[in-house]
Structures are given as C-alpha cells and as structure tokens.
C-alpha cells in the first residue's frame, strides 16, 4: 500500500522547488505539484515504483516545462515579478537577472522535451549523469549527449534573440 501522505511529506518540497523554480509563480507551481502527484499515482497503478524521488523529479520537470511551453505559446510571456524578498544588491541587477531567467525559461520551451528535462535535472537539480539516466531510463552516455545538445541549443538561443530569429 502506498502512503501518499508520507510520500508528499518526503518528496513534496523537492517537487515544489522544481516546479516553482521553472514556473516562477505560486499558482502554476501548485497546479504542477498536483499534476505531478496524480501522474505518479497513475504510474504506480501500472508498475511498481522503486525510486519515487527520481520519478517525481522527472515528472515535475516534465509538467513544468509543458506548462511553460503552453504559456509561451499563448504569447503570454510576461516577466513574473515575484514578491519574494531577494538579497540581490540593486534593482538594475535584479531586473537583469529576472530578464535572464525569463529568457532561459522561454528557451527551455523551445528545446525537445527530453533535452529540456536532462538540462533541468543536471543544472537545476544537480543530479548526476547516472541519476538522470536512471530516472529517464536511458544510458549514461545518452544523458551526456542530450545535455550537450541542450546546452548548444540554449547557447544558440541566447546568442540570437527570438525576435531577431523572426
């Protein structure tokens, strides 16, 4: 029997962090949080889950990127200004950072799903290649290749802005 309360208590903060970091606001993060656990429940009906942490991280990343993609597809990409107090020194730098974050989020939506997942798992969740490979059920080398491709595409995306591309 799967005790979801314990699983939420144990892995909920990590899922919340992943969702919030990618989506940048509380409402979307809450929706993503719920979707992640519902998806995990459906998966648990079909197969035995051995590593909930990896599964939930993967699902949260996927759901968050899907939501980001939908958000940017609707051209609804306003910069979300979080009201969370920051320790950044000045408003100019803060604005620049917010701009960079928004741009990275937008660029992530343009990546293929698996590459975006690998990039987020590696760069935002600090997972090792082996952990990523285990979570996505791919080989370690493949995880490295996907990350390399994602980086290359993001570099390209940062080099030429979307408006310039159009």
């Amino acid at each position, binding site marked *: 029997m799967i005790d979801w309360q314990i699983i939420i208590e144990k892995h909920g903060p990590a899922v919340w962090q992943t969702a919030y970091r990618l989506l940048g606001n509380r409402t979307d993060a809450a929706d993503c949080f719920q979707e992640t656990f519902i998806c995990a429940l459906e998966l648990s009906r079909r197969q*035995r889950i051995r590593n909930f942490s990896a599964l939930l991280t993967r699902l949260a990343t996927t759901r968050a990127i899907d939501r980001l993609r939908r958000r940017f597809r609707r051209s609804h990409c306003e910069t979300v200004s979080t009201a969370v107090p920051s320790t950044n020194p000045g408003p100019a730098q803060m604005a620049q950072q917010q701009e*960079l974050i928004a741009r990275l989020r937008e660029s992530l939506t343009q990546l293929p799903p698996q590459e975006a997942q690998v990039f987020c798992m590696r760069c935002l969740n600090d997972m090792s290649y082996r952990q990523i490979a285990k979570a996505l059920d791919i080989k370690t080398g493949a995880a490295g290749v996907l990350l390399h491709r994602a980086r290359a595409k993001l570099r390209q995306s940062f080099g030429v802005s979307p408006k310039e591309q159009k």
Partner: protein
Amino acid sequence: MEENENILEKAVRALKNEQVPPGPPQELAEATIAKLTQTSGQSNTVMSGRRFRFIERLKATNSFTKVAAAAVLLIIAGYAAGRLSAPQGPDAEQLQAALEPAIRRNLIDEMEQYWQLVLTSSYAQLKDELGQQYRSDLNQFAAYTLAASGAATNQLLEELIESINTAQTQDRQWVAAAFEQIELNRLRDNAQLSNAFATFAVRTEDELQRTKQGMAQLLSYTQPDSSVPNELQNLKP
C-alpha cells in the same frame, strides 16, 4: 560564443539562485492528498499494490535465486521426511531420571567455578579501581600542594622584590643628596678660593708697591756713586 556561454551560465545561476518560497503550502499538500485519495480509492491502491508485488518479485528474481530457492525447498522436504520416518526415541522420564543427578552435579560445579571466577575478577577489579582512585587522589593532593607552595613562594618573592626596590630607592636618594651636598661644597670652596686669590693679588700688589717705594727710598738715602750699577740708577722715580 564564449559570451553566450557566460550569459547562459549566468542565467542558469540566476534561475538556480532564485529564491523559492518554502513549500508546498499545507493546504496544497492536503488538497493533493485528498485528490489522490479520491482518484485512486484506498482499496484499489491496496489491491493493485498486492497484486503486482508478488509478480514483480518473481520477475525481479534471477534464475540463480530461483534454483537456490528450489534447492532449499528440497532440503527442507527431505529433512521433514527424515524426521517423520525416524524410529521412536527412548522414554523421556527414564532418560530424565538417569541424567538429572549428573546434570545437577555438573551445574553446581559450574556455578561454583563461575562464582569463584566472578569473585576473583571482581576483587581484582575492585583493587584496580581503588588503586586508581588512590593514585588520582594523591595526584590531586600533590597538585594542590604544589599550587599552594608556588603561590606562597610567589608571595615571598614579591615581598623580597619590593623590599629590594625600596632599599635601592633609598640608596639612590642618599647618593643624590650626597652628590648635591658635594656640589654645594665645591661651589662654596670655589667662591672662597676666588676671593682668597683676589685678596692675595691685591695684597701682593700692595706689597710690591710698598717694596718698590722702599727700594726707591733706600736709593734716595744713598749717595750716587760710580760703583752703583746702572740698573739701580734707573730705579729712581
């Protein structure tokens, strides 16, 4: 390209360092749990969990484990068959009556040995502990005594140094007073000597004057003579 890399790294760092409010909120967690319960149904989860648990385990076990499990089952079956087919043993009461005195005696001997051993070891342990306690007390006492004697010695040394300093100060004061007195005496003697020299000079001058006058008077009393040397003639006033 490198600049793009830097911007990308900066963006990743910014996203990573973006402050995330602690969460999930309690109401969200509760709502999620409710939704999960509603979606799954508790019994369904239990059933499905039980159903695939055994199958999963079977699938997960490799062939070596299966062979080992079969061998274990065969051994257990053989042992059970052997036990069941074995002849009946001797009467238990007879065996008990025969073995009880010997067991009792052995037990008493063993208990005696055990208690002797325990007593010996506890005596040795007690001795060690007392010795350690005695040594530690002695060390403590020695440390206290050393500290007290050191304090007394320091006190005496301080007093000695103070008295030496006082005596030296007095000596220096006396020497300074003596030097002052000597200086005053020297100055007084100097003044007296200079006065005496001045008086002596004045008197010498007077005396010379008087001698000169006397010589002139003496020369005026005598008649001029050729035998008088020229030097005496020049002495006339």
